[in-house]
C-alpha cells in the first residue's frame, strides 16, 4: 500500500455531436443550431492506491463507464491529467506507454461482444501474451493452461470457441485474457451484471481470490450497490458526470452524506428487507446534454434550497477520508 497507482486530476471527457451538412446549411440561412455537447465526465478527481479496490457507482448515463475507459486508455481525456504511477500519460515515452497499456486491463459487461467469436480460446487468451513476449510459441500452451486454471476453467477446453461456453465461463475467458498480460490494475465495467445470481457469486469470489494471489488493484464499476459493498475498500458515487461522494465503504453504507447517496442506498433491494413500503426518489435522471444548473441533483433532492439552483457545490472533505459535494455541509 504505497502511493497512488492511478491518479486523475480535473479529468473531463466531452462527446461532441458536430453539425452535419444539412444543419450547416440551415445555419448559413440564419438558423441557430448548435453543436450538442455531452459532458460525460466533468472535472473528476480520483486516486486509486496500490492494492486498493475502488467501487464506482452510479446510474445509467452518469459517466461511470466513460471514466473507466479514460483510465484504461480507451478514450483520451478531453481535459485534465491522468497519471499512472506518478507519470502523466500524455508525456510518456512509447515504451512507457506500452507498459501502461499492459498494466491496465479492462473487463467488459458482455463477454460475447468482447470475445472474437472466430478465435479459439487458446488464441483469445494467448495472442496478446505471445505478441508481448510473455510466452513463446513453445511455452504458449502451458501459459494458457496456467491462465485458464487460475480463473477456474478446464484447460482441455482451450480448443473450443466462445459460443460453446456458458455466460459465466465466457466471463472467465474475458478475465483470463486480461490476466494473460500480467496487469496490475483491472477496470471491471459491470463485469458481473449479466450473470445469474449463483454464477455472480462464483465470479465475485474469483475476483477476491485473484486480488489476494496477484495483489491486483481494481476499479469496480457497477450499479449494484450490494456487490460494490461486498468487494470494495472505498466507494465513489457519481451523478451526471460528477463525483458527488467518496468514502470508505463501511462509513458510506453506515452514514451516507450526500442526499443522492442516501436515496440510492434507500432503494437497494435487500433480502432482509421484507414487505417494505417503497418510498421512491422523485423524477428522472436528467439528460447529460442539458444538465440542471448548480447542483445536478437539485430537481430530485428533498433538501434543495435556493443556493443549489445557482451554484455548483464542490467536493470537500467532511471527515478524514470522506468527501461530499453538497451545500448542506457548509451550513453546520
Amino acid at each position, binding site marked *: 500500500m504505497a502511493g497512488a497507482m492511478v491518479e486523475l486530476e480535473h479529468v473531463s471527457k466531452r462527446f461532441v455531436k458536430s453539425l452535419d451538412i444539412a444543419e450547416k446549411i440551415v445555419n448559413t440561412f440564419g438558423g441557430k443550431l448548435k453543436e450538442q455537447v455531452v459532458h460525460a465526465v466533468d472535472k473528476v478527481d480520483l486516486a486509486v492506491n496500490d492494492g486498493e479496490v475502488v467501487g464506482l457507482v452510479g*446510474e445509467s448515463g452518469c459517466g461511470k463507464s466513460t471514466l473507466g475507459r479514460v483510465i484504461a486508455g480507451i478514450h483520451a481525456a478531453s481535459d485534465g491529467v491522468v497519471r499512472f504511477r506518478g507519470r502523466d500519460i500524455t508525456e510518456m515515452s512509447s515504451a512507457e506507454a506500452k507498459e501502461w497499456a499492459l498494466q491496465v486491463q479492462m473487463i467488459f459487461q458482455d463477454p460475447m461482444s468482447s470475445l472474437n467469436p472466430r478465435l479459439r480460446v487458446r488464441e483469445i487468451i494467448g495472442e496478446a501474451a505471445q505478441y508481448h513476449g510473455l510466452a513463446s510459441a513453445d511455452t504458449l500452451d502451458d501459459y494458457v493452461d496456467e491462465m485458464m486454471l487460475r480463473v477456474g476453467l478446464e484447460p482441455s477446453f482451450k480448443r473450443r470457441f466462445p459460443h460453446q461456453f456458458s455466460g459465466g465461463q465466457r466471463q472467465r475467458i474475458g478475465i483470463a485474457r486480461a490476466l494473460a498480460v500480467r496487469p496490475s490494475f483491472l477496470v471491471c465495467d459491470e463485469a458481473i451484471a449479466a450473470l445469474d*445470481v449463483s454464477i455472480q*457469486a*462464483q465470479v465475485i469470489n474469483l475476483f477476491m481470490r485473484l486480488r489476494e494471489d496477484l495483489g491486483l488493484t481494481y476499479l469496480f464499476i457497477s*450499479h449494484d450497490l450490494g456487490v460494490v459493498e461486498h468487494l470494495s475498500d472505498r466507494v465513489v458515487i457519481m451523478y451526471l458526470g460528477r463525483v458527488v461522494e467518496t468514502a470508505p*465503504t463501511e462509513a458510506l453504507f453506515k452514514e451516507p452524506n450526500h442526499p443522492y447517496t442516501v436515496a*440510492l442506498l434507500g432503494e437497494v*433491494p435487500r433480502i432482509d428487507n421484507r414487505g417494505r413500503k*417503497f418510498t421512491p426518489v422523485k423524477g428522472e435522471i436528467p439528460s447529460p446534454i442539458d444538465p440542471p444548473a448548480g447542483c445536478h441533483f437539485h430537481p430530485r433532492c428533498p433538501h434543495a434550497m435556493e443556493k443549489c439552483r445557482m451554484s455548483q457545490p464542490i467536493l470537500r472533505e467532511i471527515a478524514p477520508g470522506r468527501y461530499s459535494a453538497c451545500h448542506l455541509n457548509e451550513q453546520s
Partner: protein
Amino acid sequence: MADSQPTLSVEDLKTYFFTKGGVARAVDGVSFSISRGEVMGLVGESGSGKSVTGFSIMGLVDPPGEVVSGRILFQGENLVGADDERMRELRGSRVAMIFQDPMMTLNPVLRIDTQMIEAVQAHEKVDRRTAFERSRDALGQVGIPSPEERLSAYPHQFSGGMRQRVAIAIALLHQPELIIADEPTTALDVTIQGQILFEVQKLCRERGMSLIWITHDLAVVAGLADKICVMYSGRIVETGAIDDVLDGPLHPYTKGLIGSVPSHNKRGEVLAQIPGMAPSLLDVPSGCAFHPRCPRADEACRRQPELYAPVQPGHQVRCIHPHLEPA
C-alpha cells in the same frame, strides 16, 4: 384473503419444447395458486422455466413448445385447451403481462395514444373520446407527469423507465384481476426500479389485483411478495410464505441462492457459491435435478423427490435431505 376460490390455480402444468435436439421439459409439473390481492414471486435462474410458466398461463407458447398436460384454472375456468377466441378475450382485459423489455410491448412506429386507444377498444365498445380519457388516467396512475401531452409522443421519446410505465399502464387499462410481470425492472436503474415497485405495490393494495412477479433477484421479491416459488430445471423446488422461505430455507438450492447474494453482514467474506451451473433442459440429471451441484446429495437423490412440507403446512420443499436444523 376472504375469497374461497383462488384467482389463479395452476395444477401440474407441463410445457415441453419439442426441438431437434430432443424434448426440453421447460416446465415439468408446476403447481401453485394465488388468491385475490396476493403477490407471488417466481424466482429462478435463466433456463429454470419461470418465464415459460408465465407464457403458458397467457397462452403464448408457440410451436415447437406445447402445454402437454395440467390445468390452469383462472377464476375456476380451465385455460389449457381454451380456444384462441376465448384467450383473446381474456388476454389484456382480465389477465395481463408486463415484459422485461417494454419495446416488446410497444410498437415503435405508432404514437402512444394510438396504441392505448386501440387496446381499450379491443375489449370494450367505447368511443374514442372515452378511450382517450381512460388512457390518460392510466398514464397518470403509473406516475407519468403531464399524461395528456405525453400521449401524443412516440415510444422512442421516452426513457427506459417511462416506457416501462407506459407498458404497465397498458396492462392496467382494463383493470385485470391478474398481472404477470416478467422481470420488468431488471433493465432499469435502482432509483427507477424503486419508483416502479412503489406504483405496482400501490396498485395491488388498492385494487386487490393479484401479481406474479417473475425474477432472478431474490432481493426485489423480498421487499414485494407475500409468497415465493423457487424454480430449478422446470420444477418448483421450494415454496412458502416469503418470511418462512427466506429465513429458513429448506432446499439446498434456495439456501445456496440466498448465500450467494452479498449482504450487509458478510462484507469481504467469501460468498457461499453453488458449484457448477444450471443443467441444460435437454439433459436434465435424473432424479433430483440439483443433485450434481448439491453438497448434501447421496445415492437416494437419484430418484425424484416429491414436494412435501416437513416443517409446517404451506412451506413445501422438493428434497430428500432438507435443511431442517435451525438456520
